[in-house]
């Protein structure tokens, strides 16, 4: 059963009183719980948050399933989200995503690679069209101005970095 860490619990409690209503704390609490649950949200996470926040599980689930940044299934250590909308689509984002995915050893979008390192998603406009193609790793600041060579090197660098831990 999922349980927030002591720090996580403290964070959620403070978020509950941060806004005008406690419901507004759901998104940040879900981010925290997702981080502590290895990058995804499942029913255990939702029931635990429901208990801690005293908000019906259905309402937390409604939020968790509506927004794309809450993952409904496990993801690799590096969740690579490649923008493929309009400008990024024109500038090679889709081809880049496919090639990086292959280099990382993922069979399909959304799969976790055998080494547990990678998951790839094609995502909608990330608001950085002047640096296309570009991507976001987990919830980090953006990785921009890519090309095929840089993208493939990024996969190799991340794999080396991931194994170092």
């Amino acid at each position, binding site marked *: 059963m999922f349980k927030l860490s002591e720090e996580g619990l403290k964070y959620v409690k403070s978020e509950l009183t941060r806004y005008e209503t406690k419901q507004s704390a759901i998104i940040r609490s879900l981010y925290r719980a997702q981080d502590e649950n290895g990058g995804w949200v499942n029913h255990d996470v939702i029931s635990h948050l429901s208990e801690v926040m005293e908000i019906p599980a259905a309402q937390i689930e409604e939020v968790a399933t509506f927004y794309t940044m809450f993952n409904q299934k496990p993801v690799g250590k590096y969740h690579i989200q490649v923008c493929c909308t309009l*400008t990024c689509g024109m500038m090679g984002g889709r081809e880049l995503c496919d090639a990086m995915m292959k280099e990382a050893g993922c069979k399909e979008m959304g799969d976790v690679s055998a080494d547990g390192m990678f998951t790839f998603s094609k995502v909608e406009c990330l*608001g950085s069209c002047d640096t296309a193609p570009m991507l976001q790793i987990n919830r980090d600041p953006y990785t921009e101005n890519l090309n095929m060579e840089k993208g493939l090197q990024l996969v190799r660098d991340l794999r080396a970095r991931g194994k170092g831990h």
Partner: protein
Amino acid sequence: MAEVKYLSEHYSKPEYRSLDGYKKHGGYEMLAKALKMEPQKIIDEVKASGLRGRGGAGFSTGMKWGFLPNNGEPRYLLCNADESEPGTFKDRVMMEKAPHQLIEGMLIAAFAVKSHKAYIYIRGEYMGPAAILEKAIAEAKAAGLIGKNILGSGFDCDLDLYLGAGAYICGEETGLISSLEGYKGQPKLKPPFPAVQGYLKKPTIVNNVETLAAVVNIIRDGGQGYRKYGTEKSAGTKLFSISGNVNKPGTYEVPLGYKMIDLINIECGGLKPGRKLKAVVPGGSSAPVLTAEEAERATLDYECLAGMGSMLGSGAIIVIDDSNCMVDVLSTITHFYHHESCGQCTPCREGTGWIEKIIHSIIHGHAKPGDIDMLLKIADNMKGRTICALSDAAALPVLSFVTKFRDEFEYFIKEKKSKVRGGQIYAQLHH
């Protein structure tokens, strides 16, 4: 008149991001000035400036502020920083380069509309700018610029940052309010408009990042002074996000009324050698596409683009050269709207899906000649029939792409391949 640095005067200075650096360049002096003015006088100046919402709708900001009822209820000011319209990235640049400019604009706006609680709603993916804003808010709080009795004026205002989690629809103001309230970001029926019944059913003003930042300049130069740039109906400057097939994509501030083709050829360094302009999406993906010939004639103001059947929108200009297949470009747009439809209204939920399916069948070689008219019919049926404007936003690119570049769609259906790049486009090569 070419590129100007009116809102973006100090954006190239890294120190401008910090409170000390911002103050060095006159930061928060306009807040001090505004706090000595009558709130109604500020609204009058904003009305006189002609400032129109920079998020996309282009509605008069001063008029919006004037819609708040005087019923003694608490009021909220929300900054829409859910910048998600494909092609748009100027708010991100503003928040990264000048977080205090936004905060100062918001505090002035809050004072003018008598709000004591303001939120910046920022999209969840913008973790970089969110961190910069959180730091700036903390600095401003510590300096007594946010909170009780701001600068000794007796005016109290709290300001906080709210993080979204990935949903285009939260950029629609009532969707944003639903999300801020802790629910799915589904839009609500208007009326009642947010100014009457918004966040927590209280009177609420929702303004875009760039709109609120411009308020600082209006206080400095006065409503009439702000009009030194722009045209009669499109006053002031605007930050344009330019991307696609130009040599120097980026964010450029130009006076409204500037020639689109000059922005492309002068500021953005034109197209790659040997390439020809094919089309321009002038105001974010929802804005009907312009042909090269229309783009040559277009000026960057609300009236000109509306007159061409398109819109200035968020000021996101996507430049498309002759190496692109318009069927392929439209396919990423139709996929986007299908993915982002919130699912409340049937014409949008079903229509975006059908459109994506038809475009998919064209690209994969099993469409019939009548499918082009079917696309037009579906898109037409999606307009003006839903709670919010997403359905229209999804229909407009389809109608304009198919009407203006019909030969490419017809060729694709007949030959089962694209008319450009020797038929080699992504969707065919990779699936």
